[in-house]
Each structure stands twice: as structure tokens, then as C-alpha cells.
């Protein structure tokens, strides 16, 4: 993680030197960045995620419409450079307020968030790399030991079973190093959409019975969580299984973990292409005769959007979308309680852990 930090810092400073140099030459400074307009967002089959195309935009201090965002960009870079250097973290909200001290009036939170995204695409690192985190937090539980790198905790280790509610995935955990676990104790990761089921899995000792690390995504997985999932998959070679509600929205939570989001098309290393959506599938609703609700108009609309999305190319995705469309039903993860509280862990889970990654 240390190396990565050095790269982030040098990338930021490179931008500063570039602007500084242009000013010394009495030129209006400018910065080039990849265009994030819809026309420039492409799906890349190789990395199986959305990426940005070749088009770039120049943001120049010479243009009256650019100079304000240009200055904001530079301020943001300066702010996160100092943040990263001092190993301090900040939230998006913090950035918004800190700017006011420099008379860098951001109109609203949205504007400062956008600037952070701009900076991400200029320096090609995600905001978590320069220590800016969103407020949302999810949790991890399981027999993995991590070693912190944050100030005051450097070298300190923690086993992630030490707290029965799970350990929050925040800046400290995101930047922690992993101690390679014993394959006989941990051989997979299970990501769970709902908090209730996450707790149930811990209570039912799923981590021991199935040798799994459990991650609570709390709905759509935050970037830090997606980053952790990828690291667990790539660094520790652990397969990732995702359990969500059986509806178009749950399906897409899994997809973002697997193939990334259009919003983060300028970033890499956030998706886990080999992760598997294990359920709840539309076909599960039929096969397990799960209690269900009818799909709403909004659900159907979402389904139509997803059908056109290039990420949903595989046969499994097509099958599930078709089935949703046919049965016009959805079921929550909790629907398995119909067969008793432990049914999902005892019967359903072992079946679904046999699912293989979808080859696109």
C-alpha cells in the first residue's frame, strides 16, 4: 500500500509542477483529462468493465467558463496532497467545507464531489487513494488478519472475527495489508446485500462451516468495499460469491461489483470480474417456490434498461432477465425464512456456492 501512496503523491505533484511551469512561462495554464461525457464511456470486453475512450478535454485557465473549475481542481489536488502526505482522511463533506476557508466557494456538495471525480480522472487514482471517503460504510467479518498502515496503528494487527457485528470497512481497513490466511480456514468471500442476513450468517457460523469471509455491502457496495473485494480476489485468490435480493436492483448490485459502474469508468481496480452472482435468482423464485411480490412498473423499466446494458451479455444474465420478465415476480433474501431460519444456510447456500463464474 505504501508504494501506491507514493504513486498517488507524485501524480498529484506532477500536475502541480505542470501548472506552475506554465505560469512561469506566462502561459495560461491548462490541464488535460479524459472526457467523461456519455459518448466517451465504452464497455471494454477485455477488462469487463466500463472504461473511458480516447477523447479528452482541456480545462484551461484562459477560458472564463473553465477558470473556476480549473482553480477548484487545483485546490482539490493541493488539499488531498496534504491530506495524503499527513496520512489523514477526509469525507466528501469535509472537502466541501474545507474549501470555504480558501474562498473557494463550491456551490454545493455536488460541485465539490464532481471536482473530486475530475481529479480522479486526471491523476488516474480513485479518491480513496488520496484519502477521501464517502460517508457510507459497510462491514467485513471472518478469519482474516489485517495489518494497519494508518498513523498510530502502523504494524498493528487485527483478526476480523474479533467483533461479532463485523468490522467497519473504512479508510483504515481499506489501506491495511492482508496477512495471507490459511487456505484450510478461509477459501472464499461471500458478499451479502442485507444486514439482517449478514448477521444471520455470522450467527450460523457460515464463516467456519463454509470457510468464508463475509462482507456486508449495505445495498450498493461503496467503492472502498469494491476495492477490498477486488484485493481479496486478486491478492489472496479467493473466489467471490454475491447474494442479493431477487429483483433487478439486487442483480445490478452484483453486476457493479463484477463489472464496475459507468460513473467510475475513469477508474480501474474497482471491479472483480470473476465474482459470481449466486442469487437470489429469478429461477430460484420458481425452483424454491419462494414467497414473492409482483414486479412494479419501475422494476420492469429497470429490467428493460439492464437488458440493453453491454455488461449483461452472458447466458446466465439473459436467462435471469427473461425469467424475471416471464414470472413478473421478485423475492427478498429473507423469503427463505418460510422454510425455517436456517434453511438458507443449510440447504440453499451449499447449492449456490457451486455456481461458476460467468465467462463473458
Amino acid at each position, binding site marked *: 500500500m505504501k508504494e501506491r501512496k507514493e504513486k498517488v503523491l507524485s501524480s498529484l505533484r506532477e500536475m502541480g*509542477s505542470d501548472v506552475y511551469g506554465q505560469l512561469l512561462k506566462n502561459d495560461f495554464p491548462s490541464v488535460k483529462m479524459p472526457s467523461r461525457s456519455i459518448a466517451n464511456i465504452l464497455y471494454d470486453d477485455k477488462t469487463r468493465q466500463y472504461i473511458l475512450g480516447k477523447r479528452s478535454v482541456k480545462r484551461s485557465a484562459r477560458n472564463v467558463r473553465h477558470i473556476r473549475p480549473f482553480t477548484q481542481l487545483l485546490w482539490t489536488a493541493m488539499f488531498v496532497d496534504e491530506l495524503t502526505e499527513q496520512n489523514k482522511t477526509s469525507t466528501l463533506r469535509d472537502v466541501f467545507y474545507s474549501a470555504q476557508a480558501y474562498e473557494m466557494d463550491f456551490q454545493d456538495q455536488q460541485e465539490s464531489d464532481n471536482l473530486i471525480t475530475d481529479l480522479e480522472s486526471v491523476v488516474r487514482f480513485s479518491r480513496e487513494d488520496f484519502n477521501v471517503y464517502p460517508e457510507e460504510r459497510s462491514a467485513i467479518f471472518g478469519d482474516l488478519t489485517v495489518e494497519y498502515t494508518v498513523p498510530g496503528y502502523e504494524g498493528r494487527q487485527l483478526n476480523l472475527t474479533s467483533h461479532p457485528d463485523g468490522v467497519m470497512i473504512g479508510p483504515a481497513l481499506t489501506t491495511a495489508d492482508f496477512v495471507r490466511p490459511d487456505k484450510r480456514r478461509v477459501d472464499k468471500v461471500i458478499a451479502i446485500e442485507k444486514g439482517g442476513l449478514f448477521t444471520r450468517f455470522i450467527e450460523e457460523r457460515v464463516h467456519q462451516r463454509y470457510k468464508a469471509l463475509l462482507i456486508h455491502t449495505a445495498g450498493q457496495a461503496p467503492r472502498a468495499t469494491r476495492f477490498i473485494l477486488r484485493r481479496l480476489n486478486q491478492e489472496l485468490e479467493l473466489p467471490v460469491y454475491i447474494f442479493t435480493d431477487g429483483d433487478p436492483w439486487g442483480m445490478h448490485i452484483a453486476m457493479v461489483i463484477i463489472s464496475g459502474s459507468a460513473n467510475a469508468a475513469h477508474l480501474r481496480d474497482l471491479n472483480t470480474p470473476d465474482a459470481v452472482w449466486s442469487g437470489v435468482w429469478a429461477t430460484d423464485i420458481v425452483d424454491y417456490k419462494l414467497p414473492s411480490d409482483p414486479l412494479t412498473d419501475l422494476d420492469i423499466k429497470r429490467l428493460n434498461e439492464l437488458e440493453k446494458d453491454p455488461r449483461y451479455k452472458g447466458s446466465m444474465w439473459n436467462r435471469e432477465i427473461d425469467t424475471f420478465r416471464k414470472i413478473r415476480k421478485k423475492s427478498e433474501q429473507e423469503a427463505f425464512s418460510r422454510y425455517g431460519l436456517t434453511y438458507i444456510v443449510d440447504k440453499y447456500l451449499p447449492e449456490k456456492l457451486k455456481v461458476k463464474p460467468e465467462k463473458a
Partner: protein
Amino acid sequence: MTLVQEAFQEISAADFFYRNRDIAGFTSPSRALYSTIRELVENSLDACETGGIPPDIYVRVSLESGPVDGPGTYVVRVEDNGIGVPGDIIPSAFGQVLYGSKYKLRQTRGTFGLGGKMALLYGQITTHSEATIASSNNPRKRIVEYQIRIDIQQNKPVIIKHKQRSNPAHWRGTIVEFRTEADYSRAMAKILEYMKQTAIIVPYANITFVDPRGRLYKFVRGTTKVPKAPTETSPHPHGVDVETVQRLLKITEAKSLQEFLRSHFQRIGETTARKFLHYAGLGQKKTPRNMGPDDVLKLVKAMKSYEDFLAPDPTCLSPLGEELLATGIKKELGVSQEQIDDGTAFVTTLQRKPDTYAGFPFIVEIGLASTKSIQAEGRILLFRFANKIPLLFDEASDVSWNVVNELIDWRNYRVIPGETPLAVFVHVCSTKIPYKTVGKEFIADRPEVEHEILNALRESGRSLKIYLSRREHLEREKKRLDVFEKYLPKVAVFSTRLAKEKKEPDVKQLLKGVMKYTAEEEGEEATTRGSTAEEEQA
């Protein structure tokens, strides 16, 4: 059942006006004070302009008894430096309500000086006291002073006192002073507005006003040029009625109808008279003496319908003129020549060619002004004037209001109504202003008048548009420079810190160069803010 015997009695002209004072604007103590001041000031202005004298008007209102914030007894005094009134006719000029014996027309503020007499009459009946009038029509002669009352039933002046004073200062003019019931606290706003607007439309007048609270208001003239006084003309045949013709027939010395027409009407010469009489079907045998009622009716009808008369003669009109109107607007809005030169304020005026309606000539004059001192308050400010008097009441019923707010699409002139500070001035002069009611407060929507106002505004709107576009451009440039001045130094600071350098680059050179880049920038790809427009798809 009892039969009620209705008692009929003749009333004098004074009595008639006394009984109908409401229609002359004397409805309440506050409205009466406003009308009193207005009528006297207008008489004074007329007296000055007739002599081509730049008016010096002094108005003083003082509280004699009563509360400060309610109806009480006030003393009103109005002085002018006009042509004065000959001593022997002062009593009847101020103490007798006359029916106009004039058969000549010219543009005046009031009609037959009726309003001034109403003011005295109202003062007399509310305070039971007399009026003092002093006047001199010759600086080398003595000043004549009268104290009079009006005998309402007889319609005659009653002279209480009469004296002559020496005139060492060689003064010429008229002073009127009398008691009246009034309510200054309620009338104050309108009175001050009246004076301010009078100062616009009579920019060559000095008006001094001392109010009951001892405050002094001075409206100083911006020029000493007085517009040419209107000449008197005979009526135009399109603009007369049966009564007028009948009266003229009675007093005329003409022996034939041809001669009658030529001597009492404008635009009728020998040929026109002959052709017209043929058109009217009034034979050679008819003379002014033997015209029966049916003949008069036939004559008037023919006068109205005959199309070959020349348009009414406009020389009897006395418009203000573009230059004087601009002077008035500038001085009362506080617009300096520097502001006009540097583009922060704009005033334009326009006078249309004379036009006519129903046999009466009229001229429309327009002013447009835009300056910061005009508070838009969500609308376009409208100032209305008729024969050089401001109209302050019933704005929304006026023809100008309709033109300004309904007929003109201001957006064509780069005006955003309610945002762009804009004042519109409309002055209509005519021998007969087409007032909609007796109250003389708003002008009827005569199509001819409406059309002239509309065209005048459209015409002067073009230069307004040019001005507003230029100002928009200047403001944009200013904003642009402000943006660079705010952000470039910050760019220097932030990049120095980010690059871990010590010395900040100097951005003065760059700031100097900012103006040059406008053109380049217009063509560049518009990438504003950091936002991409797509929805959250995650």
C-alpha cells in the same frame, strides 16, 4: 297619498360647481389639498409661459389649527412671476365662475381656469374666510391687493378689502393666499410626487415648496428655455358640436354662410367653403340669420363627414420638445452627462409629428430612461403627462398603461420587464385631451392616440435596444475580468504549494492579456464545471 311638490330653482355656475365639487377632485380634505395646490400651480405656470417667462413658483402650506396627522385648517400660499392680472379684473378673475366665452382654441393646462376658483370656493366653504390676491402686471406700477369672497348664489365676487401697495422691487406676478380645510399628512406623498413630476415636464421652472412641517423642497430648473407659447386658432370643422355652431351663428357678423365658415373655422378658404356647402346641400339662400335648428344639425353633420378638409392646424400646440423633455428627465432622475457618456445611464426622447383625432390636433412625446436609480420593483415605471401636467391617478386605466404593458413586447428591445430598470414618459398635448372622465386623471384609449404612443415607443425602443445590448456586453466583460482577477492569483498560490515550490509566479501579465482572448474562447468546446451529465448508473 300626498303629492310631493318638486321645487325647481335656477342655480348659478358657482352653485353648480359647489354642489358638484366631487367631480373636480375635492372629495376629501387630503384630496382637496392636492387638487388645490395642483390647480394653483398650473395657473401660475400658464401665467409664466404665456409671457415666455421661466417660472419661479413658490408654494407654502402651513397648519393653522388642528392635529398634525388629520384634517385641520391650513393656509395655502402660491406665488409666481407670471404676467400678472390687471388690477380691475382681479375680483372677477378669482371670484366668479365663468362659462368660457372663448371660441378660440389653444393648448392650456386647465379649462377656463375653473380649478383655481374651485380651490378658493372649497377654502371659503370649509373655513368661512376670504382669499387674498395680490398681483402686478407691470413692474413699474403699484401692486394691487384684494380680499374677496365668492357669493355662491349670485356667482359674484364680494370685495372685502382693496388696496394698492408700492412696488419698489419692480415685481410682476401673482400671489394667492387663503385658508382651507386640508389633511397634509395624507396628501404629502402625492403632493411631492406631483411636484417632482412637474419638475420633469416643466424643466425650465424653479419650484419651491415649504411644507407644514417646515421642510423646504426645491426643484431647480435645468434650463431657462421656455417653449413657444401656443397660438390661438379657430376650431376645426371636424371638432365642433351643435351648441358651438349655434352660439357662433348668434354672434357672427358674417352675412353669408361662406363668409361664416371662412371667418370662424380653420382650414376653410373660399373654394373649400363653396365645395363644402355644395356637399352639405345648404342652398345659396341660407344665411347665418335664417338657419333653422334642422339646418344647423345638417351643417354640423356635414362638417363631421366631409373628408376634404385639411387636417387641424397643429401650431396651436405647445409640446415640450425632445431636448427639454430630456433635460427634465435627466435632472429629476439624477442622471449626469458622465453617466450617459460612460454607458451607465440612458435617456432618449422623441417627438412624433402632429396627428388628429375627431378634429383636434395632438402631438405625442416620449421619453425612455434606464439608470440604476430607477427601482424596477417588478414593473416598468410609467410617467404620464397631458398638456404639461402630470397625471397621478388611475394609471391602469390610461391608454399609455395599455400600450406599455399590453401592446409592446419589451423583449424585442432587450428589456426584461421588472428586471431592467426602465422608465417610460408619455406626454400628450392637444387642444382637447381625450380624458375618459371629468377627473382629468387618465386618457381614453382613442385609437389614434394609442397608435401614436405605440409607434413612438417602438421607434425610440430601437435606440434603447442598442444601449441595453451594449450595456449587457460591458457587464459581461466586467464580470469576466472579475472572474480572472479572483481565480488567477489563487491558481498561482495553489500550484506553488502543490508543486512544493517556493516562489509564486506573477500573474499580472496574464491578467493584462485576458481581454484579448474573448474571441478564441467563444469557439472552444464548452466543458463547464466538472460534471458529466449522465445519471448515476452504479
